[in-house]
């Protein structure tokens, strides 16, 4: 079943099976999936637990950042107040933005994905449960230690956008700014881990029959969001690395006096920063779509149009970044292009809004709590969207930019596009995880308080902005005449806070986490798979999906699933497993064996966070130790996985046999690796863009590169390494010798290191130093990036050798060898590309 074709009618007709699954099989499923007990609870990796911790942590950060917002509103309630000192205020507003964006909004939508996605698409778990656990713990440890910096007065104070030179070594000499770079580092890791999970999970672990056109909208949004993370986050990863190099080692990448350019930061930051807004908004909009569909009890009207809108928004969002830079004096035509694209992004949003209205019109909407939140979301979001259209037009943006008008605009968009849908989602989906549903009556109170509060807070800010009140001010003067407006805003903020407080009361009274059964069930009557009866193993059997709202269409589905009449009603191998299906039509292809609870992901997370934290407080030795321990923990965790399976093929129900192990391009690990390499590729591409940008803007600081002829060894060793790593797979196939193959990979890594060393000496020979100029900074940053990849390659080669000696490499094909070979091939290729491009973008300067 390698071809991606729909399940044949003959096969489909075998389901639901005539015979129900046995009690013994159910008992075995329960045993296999049971959660670790007692003090071992933190070794749990199942999405039921990790998803719940994730969303609870995100909510905690929402509360913390919300408290910061209230502090700001108190300070601004009247002119010239001294409730917060300017320094404190600057830390508070920086943390409010950073925490809301990075520690609440992005993790929250990822958390919703971790919690809901597997069940929603009929998988037993995400494809890499231990990676989810690692990503979660690193987010928790990193997030908490980052937030704690504010209690020591060490929190970053340069704004969430961190523009240099203000955040550079001269104007921010303390470690405050380093804490920002640290906090972002954590979220970069967990966001990318999550994105990889979602891409592989959505493309490969959907219930049989759930073709792309039948996926729940949230799955579409998470897919697009993940791809956007893969494209967008590398830019901010690079930017943070470059700024840290600037701060720690005085590499003048953003210093205009030495051949750098502060505008480069803005390009890199907003190339990530604006898509980031849609990374948050798309899952929000998708939750909203699903809420609307359920409260109206109608399938989404214009489902393909909604998918189209999500895709269009995802793409176009990468062409709007410079609308944050309309006032920086970039050329007219450039500004115009970005203005046009910013205008174009409203078209999919408009289409989506009218699909929502159509869906509401198609059914008989109920005005329950999720319904109110859904309708409220639409109104708030459209208001923010329309002011967004206004600021897309350049001349008006010249006035509105960096004024309170923008503060109003962005909060309308984010509250309407993400926060209201999320609260609606809390009410809608809580019964799937809790013994009791939340109180619908209380939910209405929460809604009205938050809805009223939103308008009272943010509507006056439009006017304050037009009156000339800039953003990020710790106070204003009576002469500015904005005190009445600000006072009203402060009152509104407390209304929102009251709504959130009522929500917390509701949670305390009603929410009782009940993973794996005993939950309140489908209170609002949703039609998608997450509402099937479930245990920790998810559903008893994995249904055959024939429509977008399977539970509405087939009223017997829940019973048949529960009786084990569909796919995988038992564990074939005695291990945790789920179905792998084809990308388009979701036809079963393979049994995916999932790893179970382990102490190593959390251990690795502790030491990874330790590494970054210790580095931030400049304890280099301890940091190195922590880093090494993190790598050891990851190796132990990996060592337990990818074992040869005795059973070669398994019956997944209805007599359909699928293999238990697949290597090569259809393997999930290979998919994940390719996704990860895309991240590296984007980092590299952005680095080359940075070099190009400085080259064209600061040519007088440029120096000639090493001649191509003098770079003989760079290319010879590089090509040798590339060839060797490319041939690893066929080597294993032909020679059937794991030791030899692992040895070849190690040699390839060493050759690549040789090439890198030759490159380094070449630049040294022409006298380019990293502190000397922007060119030096970027060229050495690219080399440093390459060096860190080479370190990874070395560790991987050593790991492959160890596995080979331990006899743990499967033959004739091995996923481990596939993955090592891919990463090495990429690294060698990147080294060659870097050598060529750094030389090419330096000539004629």
């Amino acid at each position, binding site marked *: 079943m390698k071809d991606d074709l729909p399940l044949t009618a003959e096969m489909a007709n075998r389901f639901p099976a005539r015979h129900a699954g046995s009690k013994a099989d159910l008992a075995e499923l329960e045993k296999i999936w049971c959660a670790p007990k007692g003090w071992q609870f933190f070794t749990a990796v199942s999405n039921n637990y990790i998803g719940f911790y994730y969303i609870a942590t995100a909510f905690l950060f929402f509360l913390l950042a919300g408290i910061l917002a209230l502090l700001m509103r108190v300070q601004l309630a009247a002119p010239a107040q001294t409730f917060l000192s*300017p*320094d404190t205020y600057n830390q508070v507003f920086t943390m409010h933005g950073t925490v809301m964006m990075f520690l609440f909004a992005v993790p929250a939508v990822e958390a919703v994905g971790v919690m809901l996605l597997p069940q929603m698409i009929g998988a037993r778990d995400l494809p890499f449960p231990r990676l989810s656990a690692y990503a979660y713990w690193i987010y928790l440890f990193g997030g908490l230690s980052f937030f704690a910096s504010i209690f020591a007065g060490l929190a970053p104070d340069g704004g969430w956008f961190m523009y240099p*030179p*203000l955040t550079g070594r001269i*104007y921010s000499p303390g470690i405050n700014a380093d804490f920002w770079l640290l906090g972002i580092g954590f979220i970069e890791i967990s966001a990318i881990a999550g994105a990889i999970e979602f891409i592989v999970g959505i493309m490969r672990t959907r219930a049989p029959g759930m073709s792309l056109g039948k996926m729940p909208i949230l799955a579409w949004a998470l897919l697009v969001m993940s791809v956007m993370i893969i494209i967008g986050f590398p830019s901010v990863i690079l930017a943070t690395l470059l700024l840290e190099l600037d701060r720690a080692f005085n590499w003048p990448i953003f210093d*205009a*006096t030495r051949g750098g*350019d*502060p505008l480069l930061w803005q390009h890199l930051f907003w190339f990530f920063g604006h898509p980031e807004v849609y990374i948050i908004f798309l899952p929000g909009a998708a939750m909203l779509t699903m809420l609307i569909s359920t409260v109206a009890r109608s399938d989404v*009207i*214009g489902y393909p*149009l909604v998918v189209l809108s999500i895709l269009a928004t995802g793409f176009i969002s990468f062409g709007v970044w410079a609308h944050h830079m309309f*006032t920086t*004096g970039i050329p*007219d035509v450039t*500004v*115009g292009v970005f*203005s*046009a694209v910013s*205008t174009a992004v409203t*078209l999919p949003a*408009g*289409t*989506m*809004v*009218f699909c929502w*209205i*159509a869906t*509401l*019109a*198609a059914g008989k*909407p109920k005005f329950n709590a999720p319904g109110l939140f859904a*309708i409220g979301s*639409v109104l708030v979001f*459209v208001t923010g969207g*329309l002011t967004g*259209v*206004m600021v897309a*037009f*350049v*001349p*008006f*943006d*010249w*006035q509105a*930019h*960096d*004024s309170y008008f923008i503060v109003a605009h962005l909060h309308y968009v984010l509250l309407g596009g993400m926060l209201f849908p999320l609260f609606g989602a809390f009410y809608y989906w809580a019964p799937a995880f809790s013994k009791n549903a939340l109180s619908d009556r209380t939910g209405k109170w929460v809604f009205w308080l938050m809805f009223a509060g939103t308008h009272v807070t943010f509507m006056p800010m439009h006017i304050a*902005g037009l*009156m*000339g009140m*800039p*953003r990020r*001010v*710790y*106070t*204003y*003067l009576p*002469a500015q*005449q904005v005190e009445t407006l600000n006072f009203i805003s402060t009152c509104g903020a407390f209304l929102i806070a009251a709504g959130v407080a009522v929500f917390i009361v509701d949670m305390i009274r009603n929410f009782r986490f009940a993973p794996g059964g005993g939950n309140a069930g489908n209170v609002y009557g949703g039609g998608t798979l997450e509402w099937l009866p479930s245990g920790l193993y998810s559903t008893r059997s994995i249904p055959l999906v024939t429509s977008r709202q399977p539970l509405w269409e087939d009223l017997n589905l829940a019973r048949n699933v529960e009786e084990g009449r569909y796919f995988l009603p038992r564990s074939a191998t005695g291990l945790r497993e789920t179905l792998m299906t084809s990308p388009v039509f979701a036809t079963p292809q393979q049994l995916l064996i999932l790893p179970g609870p382990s102490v190593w992901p959390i251990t690795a997370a502790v030491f990874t966070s330790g590494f970054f934290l210790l580095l931030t407080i400049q304890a280099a030795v301890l940091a190195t130790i922590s880093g090494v321990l993190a790598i050891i923990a990851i190796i132990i965790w990996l060592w337990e996985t990818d074992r040869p399976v005795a059973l070669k093929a398994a019956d997944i129900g209805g007599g359909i046999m699928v293999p238990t192990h697949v290597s090569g391009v259809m393997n999930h690990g290979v998919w994940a690796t390719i996704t990860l390499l895309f991240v590296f590729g984007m980092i590299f591409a952005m680095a080359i863009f940075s070099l190009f940008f400085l080259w064209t803007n600061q040519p007088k600081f440029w120096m000639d590169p090493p001649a191509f002829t003098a770079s003989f060894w760079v290319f010879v060793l590089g090509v040798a390494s590339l060839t060797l790593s490319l041939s690893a797979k066929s080597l294993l196939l032909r020679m059937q010798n794991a030791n030899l193959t692992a040895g070849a990979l190690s040699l390839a890594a060493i050759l690549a290191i040789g090439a890198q060393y030759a490159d380094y000496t070449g630049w040294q020979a022409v006298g380019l130093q990293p502190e000397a100029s922007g060119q030096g900074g970027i060229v050495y940053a690219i080399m440093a990036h390459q060096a860190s990849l080479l370190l990874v390659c070395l560790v991987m080669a050593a790991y492959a050798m160890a596995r080979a000696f331990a006899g743990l490499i499967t033959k004739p094909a091995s996923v481990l060898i596939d993955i090592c070979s891919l990463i090495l091939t990429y690294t060698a290729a990147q080294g060659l590309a870097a050598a060529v491009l750094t030389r090419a973008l330096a000539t004629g300067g």
Partner: protein
Amino acid sequence: MEWPAVLSPAGPNAAQIAQLFWILIFVISLVMAVVCVGLAAALFGSARVRAILTDKRTILSAGLGVPALILTVLLTYSLILTRNLSSPNGPDFMRVRVTGEMWWWRIAYLDNNGNITLSDANELHIPVGKTVAIELDSADVIHSFWVPQLAGKEDMIPGRRNILRLSADKAGVYAGQCAEFCGGPHALMGLTVIAHSPEAFDDWQRGRLIAPIAPQNELAIKGADLFLKSGCAACHIVRGTAANGQAGPDLTFVGARLKLGAGILPNNRGTLAGWVADSQAIKPGNRMPSYPMLLPAELQAIAAYLEQLR
């Protein structure tokens, strides 16, 4: 409460933007109304109306087609406006250079060859009816020059020089403020623009080309002495005296300014004394230290000296 600054323009640049604002606010109000009516019809409308709303043609025309048409017109208009507002100068314009510093504005009036004719700080004087090309520089971090009644904002970025063109069409005093977060007391980095009638501007300019007369009364003479002795001269220049510091604002005509501390305090002897005594309490984090060691009488003398620098 007055009409918001952005919407009470005092020059053609801001006026065109205000006009764009009114067009935009009209259009988006209309769209908002359509969405609200659509939503209400979806929730409470008759079956027939709801059937229309669920029609794919309705979705496509309301969500995609009509917005595309409206936005094409608006976009074209805004692009033309963008070009007009940033197009090069005519032959007759005045050159000024404003440099953003943490947390004040250095101002230099230039002749046509770019030589500085006059230096000042925190207060920009312009003649009504003449295009002023403001060269925007930064001495440290990114700042942004924003006087909403006259024009949109433009950033001051180290290593670049942006040029903002504006003019005033009526005499008056227009408040401005730094709009790009620049750390510390960014909130208190104000600016005053004073537009004079052309004749008044010429008078003002002539007055500024000669150094102020030496202090006359005893108190001010004592103040001038203290000014030099207390270290003020290390950072401030008062032309025609030994004070020649370059780090801080030019104080040659400080007494003539409407505001003190970069647009934040009224300017009189009391506020001058208060500022010198404890500027850190008024504008925490600014680069001028407080002078708690000065006695009240000494502060009065310095204030008297500064006040008569006009």
